[in-house]
């Protein structure tokens, strides 16, 4: 027989003015399970809580109802009071007689009192069905996985590692650095990107808490928050990094030339290569798709010239497994392919380049020694047309969103052009100039004055060739006329797009992505770095286009989240999760569809005691379950129970009034 204690709060005058509290107490005393009922001015105060503690002991109560403010307010407070009296804190129910009665029925004290009584009856009825619940503690593997070694991944890895938490940093290409390593200078301060990035790259390589696994990819993630197991495929580099000194003899002698990805294909690299001189790790890898030794078995020059004997043509891909507790996804972005812009002659005219190609050209360590040139004839361009929003904000041919960074980097490009080619003139076709950010608007204003760039508001409709010039025809909406600009070089500010592999990665990690392929955050405002799957966080452009400062902030935020997650040896988790009664489960597996977290899996269990006949039933991983109850309502056999909100509890509430 349940023994319920009811404690009705005055909340000063907040409740007592509109609800006849003594009458409520008298009424609940009539319920046969209620063995004790009382009232107090402030139940949440120390004396109030003391009353609860004392009554629990004195009347051997088995569950407690506090009729006061919303459970969203003080449920935790009262649960603690129960714990202090040695009672399971989940035997508490709160009747919300303030927000749901006294404050909303201030004109009718009788009705408000009646309602308060009903709310108490419901809470008593529910509490009778309450069960003792215990916080779930999930052991935590204190090691983080960071996927992607761009500035986001680097920052997250460094911040986590600085908290003395081991980090596994996985990078797909042979070197970390990402897109930022390809940039020349950064807006709005015109810092040299290399100068601020490379020290961080070196820090990563030398950090005792960071395990850098370059040239590799994540291929499998299993488990749940705090207890993930990851499989990483380390692609064969054909170079023994342990013995290689990075002297460079191999790539100097390699006879095979391949378009250089780092320089956007403007120049060539070798089949054995380091992506760029400041690469970390600064060890070459062999590009198996182009190496003649690997393809045809002839050549072997690099092995001959390597006096350390580090070249190993027989090397195989390797699968590395790590146990980790949290994941930071920082896979960055892709440049959008402007091929759909056929009216610009993309692909036909060599002198139309993308902004990242321009960036490489003007970069001091770029393929043209920092001077922009026309790809067609190598001449230095005088008139350069920059076209913004190529792909961005274009529902017909591109993508609907604003890529956020193009306005700023195009402004930067006009400055860089002006620096490198003094007698040049830049034209910028734009839709809007979006310069929201610290120092951004000032930067744009100053650039416009300093460089004398002609800004034309309007879209470009056609580019055609006239002699060796490109004629750019567009609208100048401010004078309402079609204008044509004779250009030596056209630079397209192509959109930022989600990495093509993001959907695959999302499926592999069990997180969601939006229609563009960007990974989805758990809440756009309040949980912008978490994903819906506990323990997986997002940093940088993989979530949405953003600039470097924002990327770094988000990466550091991820690090803070990871550190918070790892603060104790185990993670405490709310016990209000679902569980399955194997006997009732018919194994229809419909609940697997309904669970948004993938917390439900199947397992084979013996049908009877000692039987060898197996039956497939559902199984809930309580570490992953968030307690929404979708599966409970889906389950026809009522095999699933959600602790804290069981069918009995809810039906008790329904029938109690």
């Amino acid at each position, binding site marked *: 027989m349940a023994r319920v204690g009811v404690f009705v709060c005055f909340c000063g005058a907040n409740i007592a003015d509109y609800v006849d509290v003594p009458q409520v107490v008298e009424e609940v005393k009539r319920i046969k399970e209620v063995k004790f009922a009382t009232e107090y001015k402030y139940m949440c105060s120390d004396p109030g809580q003391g009353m609860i503690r004392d009554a629990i002991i004195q009347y051997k109560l088995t569950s407690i109802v506090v009729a006061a403010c919303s459970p969203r307010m003080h449920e935790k407070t009262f649960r603690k009071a129960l714990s202090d009296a040695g009672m399971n804190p989940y035997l508490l129910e709160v009747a919300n007689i303030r927000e749901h009665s006294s404050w909303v029925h201030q004109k009718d004290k009788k009705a408000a009192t009646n309602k308060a009584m009903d709310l108490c009856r419901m809470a008593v009825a529910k509490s009778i069905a309450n069960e003792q619940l215990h916080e779930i503690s999930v052991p935590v593997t204190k090691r983080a996985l960071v996927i992607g070694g761009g500035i986001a991944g680097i920052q997250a890895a460094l911040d986590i590692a600085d908290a003395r938490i081991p980090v596994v940093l996985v990078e797909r290409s042979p070197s970390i650095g990402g897109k930022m390593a390809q940039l020349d200078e950064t807006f709005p301060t015109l810092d040299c990107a290399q100068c601020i990035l490379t020290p961080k790259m070196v820090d990563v390589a030398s950090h005792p808490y960071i395990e850098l696994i370059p040239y590799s990819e994540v291929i499998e993630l299993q488990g749940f928050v705090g207890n993930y197991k990851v499989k990483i495929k380390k692609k064969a580099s054909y170079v023994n990094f342990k013995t290689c000194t990075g002297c460079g003899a191999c790539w100097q002698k390699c006879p095979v030339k391949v378009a250089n990805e780092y320089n956007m294909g403007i120049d060539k690299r070798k089949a054995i290569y380091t992506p760029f001189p400041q690469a970390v790790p600064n060890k070459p890898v062999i590009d198996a798709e182009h190496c003649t030794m690997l393809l045809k078995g002839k050549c072997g020059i690099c092995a001959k010239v390597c006096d350390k004997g580090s070249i190993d043509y027989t090397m195989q891909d390797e699968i590395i497994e790590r146990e980790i507790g949290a994941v930071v996804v920082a896979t960055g972005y892709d440049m959008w392919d402007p091929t759909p812009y056929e009216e610009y002659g993309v692909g036909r005219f060599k002198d139309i380049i993308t902004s990242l190609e321009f960036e490489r050209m003007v970069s001091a360590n770029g393929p043209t020694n920092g001077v922009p040139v026309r790809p067609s004839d190598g001449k230095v361009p005088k008139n350069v047309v920059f076209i913004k929003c190529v792909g961005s904000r274009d529902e017909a041919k591109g993508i609907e969103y604003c890529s956020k960074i193009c306005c700023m980097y195009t402004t930067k490009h006009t400055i860089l052009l002006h620096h490198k080619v003094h007698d040049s003139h830049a034209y910028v076709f734009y839709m809007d100039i979006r310069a929201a950010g610290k120092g951004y608007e000032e930067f744009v204003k100053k650039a416009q004055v300093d460089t004398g760039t002609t800004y034309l508001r309007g879209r470009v409709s056609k580019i055609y060739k006239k002699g060796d010039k490109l004629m750019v025809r567009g609208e100048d909406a401010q004078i309402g006329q079609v204008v044509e600009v004779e250009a030596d070089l056209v630079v397209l500010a192509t959109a930022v797009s989600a990495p093509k592999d993001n959907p695959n990665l999302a499926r592999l990690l069990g997180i969601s992505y939006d229609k563009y392929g960007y990974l989805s955050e758990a809440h756009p405002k309040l949980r912008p770095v978490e994903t819906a799957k506990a323990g997986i966080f997002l940093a940088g452009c993989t979530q949405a286009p953003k600039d470097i400062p924002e990327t770094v902030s988000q990466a550091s935020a991820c690090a803070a989240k990871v550190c918070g997650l790892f603060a104790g040896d185990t993670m405490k988790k709310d016990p209000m999760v679902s569980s399955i009664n194997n006997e*009732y489960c*018919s194994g*229809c597996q*419909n609940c697997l*569809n*309904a669970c948004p977290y993938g917390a439900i899996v199947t397992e084979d269990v013996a049908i009877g005691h000692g039987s060898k006949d197996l039956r497939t039933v559902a199984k809930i991983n309580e570490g992953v379950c968030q307690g929404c109850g979708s599966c409970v309502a*889906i389950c026809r056999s009522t*095999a699933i129970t959600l602790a804290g909100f069981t069918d009995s509890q809810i039906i008790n509430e329904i029938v109690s009034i």
Partner: protein
Amino acid sequence: MNYTKEIQDIAAKLFAEGKIDVFVGYRVNGFDDNQVPVLITDPQDVSKLVFTDKSVFNLVNYLKNDHTRRKRVGLVVKGCDSRSLNLMLTESQVKRENLYVVGICCEGVVDEAGQKMQNCTDCMVPDAVVSDELLGTPSGSDTLSGSYKMNADIAMLAEKPLTERAAYFEEVFENCIRCNACRHSCPLCYCAKCCIDQETATLYNGANTTSGAFHALMTWSLHLAGRCVDCRNCEKACPSHLPLHLLHKQNESVIYENFQEHLAGVVTGDRGAFYKYSLKDPDDFIM
């Protein structure tokens, strides 16, 4: 429609080849020309099998039986039966490799009075959608996006004033004797233990009263919403002759018209309408 010979041959062949342990079919009941289901385990008895337009029952129901579970079974399915089989497969209740399915391109079956059954005149999926062997000529009807035939009873009742409907159904539920024959005859009621019978039974109210019947039948029909294939096994089994199809057809019409779903069970792997959702589902009934 008479496939007696073909089915006898197939069953005999399957037994001869040792492919099945039991064959589920129909036989004549022995005192009139109506038929009852039969589970044949002895190849000698194959000659008892018949199939005509009197073969009304949905034999998939026998797959949840202990005589057939974990055995290799041959069985005969009409269009509607095959849909319930499809759902059983989707919901992992039977293993396809254990079954040899003789599909029928059904021309409709008749009730005891010789009248074509209402679900047959309304039938949208006459051909078996799952089969190893198909007998008869496929109708070629569009099972995936064919236009929905509104059940005449539903349409008639929907037009009645609310009070009349309430009175009508009150009598329906009053006449229910809570024998659970509907549940036992339904191939999709395969739960290890029905929710109505569990410890929470008091919560569910399985009492033999009008309100108990109301509760049980409403819950039952909602559990079959988006899954019922309109085979009418329940109605044939009901000793009180309750018009149980009304509840199912009502749910089916709401689901079909509002959620852009296929009919239940026409696509293998396609779960019932309650186990998925679309962002385009109607929202206008919610404030």
